[in-house]
């Protein structure tokens, strides 16, 4: 979201799912959509059947990669190197869109200089992707009339996640693959309302509708509607909050629908910080591990089926959630809890009879939501922002202005970002020679609070997935429980052989933290701009529980990635 907002001024995917079906080249980068976003992948499959070429860029040969024309299996954390090599090749082969670059972008010369060292051969050394495959992707992407760049947490969950995003956006700018039907840039959101949280202003630097909190006009409109003074400075994102908690500057915490005791990298450290708070309130539908640490727990209703409201999806579509069942006794709607708190804090004027009243207040303050009445949302199956008008609809893609004939109509031009590559913080060494990356399985979700109740025949519990050759070298058998250690801690898990992992690469999920807490291993190396931790790249070692095993154990494994 930060990367897109930096370049285009709006933190949202630029295309719609339907456009994936009508494009010529689809790049899934750091995204296993077949498992993590299965119904989005249906649109990809339709695109493939309509003739699109699919490239999947992922360290693992995932279920999505099996549908690709070409899988580029790069080393974990070498994304910028690969993106820069693609950009350099497109420029060197003179395949870039001169008219778009000259008329609609800025900072091209800096970008060209930044990618200049990244020859195909140099990139092959750093990324592990054969030069021919890089060239093939570069040429297909640049020659396509329409192309889509899609990514997920494989790009953002790095210490330089925002730079990763920017390096991909550069490629779309280079080829003019943005602002047209079928050509665009799409982050696939991991949670059902992560986009909506941003839309509504639940980010430290924006008011609702992505209006800057430092913008006096915007702030004054909100102050007028709310009859209060809004402090004109940025708040803290989650990582900055944890840092402030550690320094004892932030001493009380109100956690709504989040489980940081299990979802944060280096979870032992996170729990220690939470325990040091003077006061913590947790509002959730379950007594989570975080709630167990709280002073006060406020039982909430499940937003998606026990309350009325809206959520926003990955294609910026605002849709209605509706109450289908009554909540358990004692559980209350999030807004009821928050307004009750406001009353106790001396604001009895906070009074909203229903969710539509709250929504209509938002519509009056956020121009991009103004046209989204409940009745229109109902009638049209949801509406995509921006939707400033009550009568008309905007195109399904963003930033068409960049193609305006008259340069003055193009507005703020899109800047290239000459970012620099930096590998993972947690470096491989002889002591920690295996690269561990994390992700999701098809039938599970995040820390398993919701998905754990599915009686899924697919579920196999947490495993350490290893390349079979690596396992043999270590003298480890399938299903054997091993000791897995990083520089932060150790856990035990059974091993599963997976020949879709390249040698030196291991995989775990974060779905079963109560049994096996993988975030004991992960590193809290946070992106300074987004606050996201580098869940995707830990350096680990794997040891047999009983050291007498066999002599191969002493042999060092190959170092992957660096």
């Amino acid at each position, binding site marked *: 979201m930060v990367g897109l907002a930096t370049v285009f001024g709006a933190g949202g995917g630029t295309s719609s799912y339907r456009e994936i079906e009508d494009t010529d080249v689809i790049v899934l980068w750091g995204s296993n959509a077949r498992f993590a*976003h299965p119904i989005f992948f249906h649109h990809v499959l339709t695109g493939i059947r309509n003739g699109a070429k699919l490239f999947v860029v992922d360290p693992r040969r995932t279920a999505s990669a099996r549908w690709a024309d070409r899988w580029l299996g790069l080393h974990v954390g070498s994304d910028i190197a690969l993106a820069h090599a693609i950009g350099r090749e497109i420029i060197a082969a003179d395949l870039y869109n001169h008219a778009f670059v000259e008329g609609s972008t800025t900072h091209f010369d800096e970008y060209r200089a930044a990618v200049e060292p990244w020859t195909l051969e140099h990139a092959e050394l750093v990324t592990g992707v054969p030069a021919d495959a890089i060239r093939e992707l570069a040429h297909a992407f640049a020659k396509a009339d329409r192309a889509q760049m899609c990514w997920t947490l494989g790009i953002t969950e790095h210490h330089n996640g925002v730079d990763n995003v920017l390096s991909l956006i550069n490629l779309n700018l280079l080829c003019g693959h943005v602002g047209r039907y079928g050509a665009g840039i799409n982050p696939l959101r991991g949670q059902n309302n992560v986009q909506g949280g941003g839309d509504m202003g639940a980010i430290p630097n924006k008011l609702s509708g992505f209006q800057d909190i430092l913008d006096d006009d915007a702030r004054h409109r909100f102050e007028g509607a709310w009859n209060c003074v809004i402090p004109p400075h940025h708040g803290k994102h989650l990582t900055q909050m944890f840092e402030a908690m550690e320094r004892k500057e932030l001493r009380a915490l109100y956690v709504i629908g989040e489980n940081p005791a299990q979802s944060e990298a280096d979870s032992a450290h996170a729990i220690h910080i939470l325990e040091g708070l003077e006061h913590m309130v947790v509002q959730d539908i379950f007594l989570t591990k975080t709630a167990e640490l709280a002073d006060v727990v406020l039982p909430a209703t499940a937003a998606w089926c026990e309350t009325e409201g809206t959520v926003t999806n990955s294609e910026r579509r605002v849709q209605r959630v*509706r109450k289908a069942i009554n909540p358990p006794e004692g559980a209350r709607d999030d807004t009821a809890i928050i307004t009750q708190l406001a009353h106790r804090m001396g604001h009895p004027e906070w009074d909203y009879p229903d969710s539509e009243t709250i929504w209509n207040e938002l519509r009056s303050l956020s121009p991009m939501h103004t046209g989204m009445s409940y009745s229109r949302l109902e009638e049209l199956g949801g509406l995509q922002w921006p939707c400033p008008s009550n009568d008309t609809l905007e195109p399904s893609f963003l930033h068409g202005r960049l193609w305006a004939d008259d340069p003055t109509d193009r507005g703020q031009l899109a800047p290239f970002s000459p970012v620099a590559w930096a590998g993972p913080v947690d470096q491989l060494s002889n002591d920690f020679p295996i690269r561990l990356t994390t992700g999701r399985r098809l039938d599970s979700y995040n820390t398993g609070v919701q998905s754990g109740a599915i009686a899924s025949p697919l579920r196999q519990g947490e495993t350490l997935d290893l390349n079979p050759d690596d396992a043999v070298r270590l003298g480890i058998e399938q299903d054997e429980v091993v000791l897995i250690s990083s520089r932060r801690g150790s856990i035990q898990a059974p091993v599963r052989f997976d020949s879709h992992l390249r040698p030196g690469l291991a995989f775990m999920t974060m779905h079963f933290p109560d049994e096996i807490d993988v975030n004991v291993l992960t590193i809290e190396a946070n992106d300074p701009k987004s606050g996201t931790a580098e869940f995707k790249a830990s350096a680990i070692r794997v040891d047999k529980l009983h050291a007498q095993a066999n002599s191969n154990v002493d042999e060092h494994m190959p170092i992957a990635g660096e």
Partner: protein
Amino acid sequence: MNMLHETPVGLPRRAVTLQIDGDDVKVPEGSTILDACKSHGTDLPTLCYGDTLDPVNACRVCVVEVEGSRALVPSCSRPVESGMVVHTDNERARHSRKMVLELLGSSVDLSAAPRVYGWMQQYEADPSRFGDVNTMKTVRQPAKVDNDLYVRDYSRCILCYKCVDACGEQWQNSFAIAVAGRGFDARISTEFDVELPDSACVYCGNCIEVCPTGALMFKTEHDMRAANTWDEDAQQQTTTICPYCGVGCNLTLHTQDNTIVKVTSPHDHAITSGNLCIKGRFGFQHVQTFARD
């Protein structure tokens, strides 16, 4: 609910005029006779027709007479032509429909197929002319209950292949099921007839979504029917948004006694076209009142 695709792809379609039961009806070129009947307000029975699938012409229950055509034609697949004269309810069409319903009803348990009972009455179909359906070999096969999410009861299967198409290239592309055997031995099967947990099934339930007869059924529904507690008249349907990833799939929650008993997705919503994944289809247990602690 109508999703607007803001940017049209393809050329606008010409209008075609045809006659249905004596009335002139104008529909876009490329429509089927069934589409034209719907726009005319004529209700035809269908079983193998799926609004999200290509027609398979398997069940023949929607046949109509088209003047000049030797055989009756399946309305679900035949495109309209200008000047076509269609009879949906004359003696020949009604007689054929009655026979089809009797043949299906005498070899398949249609008790969980919505609306079939009404059609049987409408067309005076009497499947018992062909024997007691409950003694038929096709009906006496036990339901396959090999996992906790959904049940395959092939005593209810009319071999319409919609599940195969939904699992295969038309939607899910998992290819976990196909038609095995030929002729009287034809049946829907996993590879080598293995149990579902050993098959390529990913439990999206997109086959359940399209099954017209209840041969594929949520285990909750199967168990409630067995316990005689399944009561569709007492159920509500509420459409909301899936609580998992950010795609924003619409879920229609079927609730009975404040409990979610089944999940479907609107076929006319462009995000899902009725399709879900295992999380959206079966991931509701965490809010069932007994499970919250």
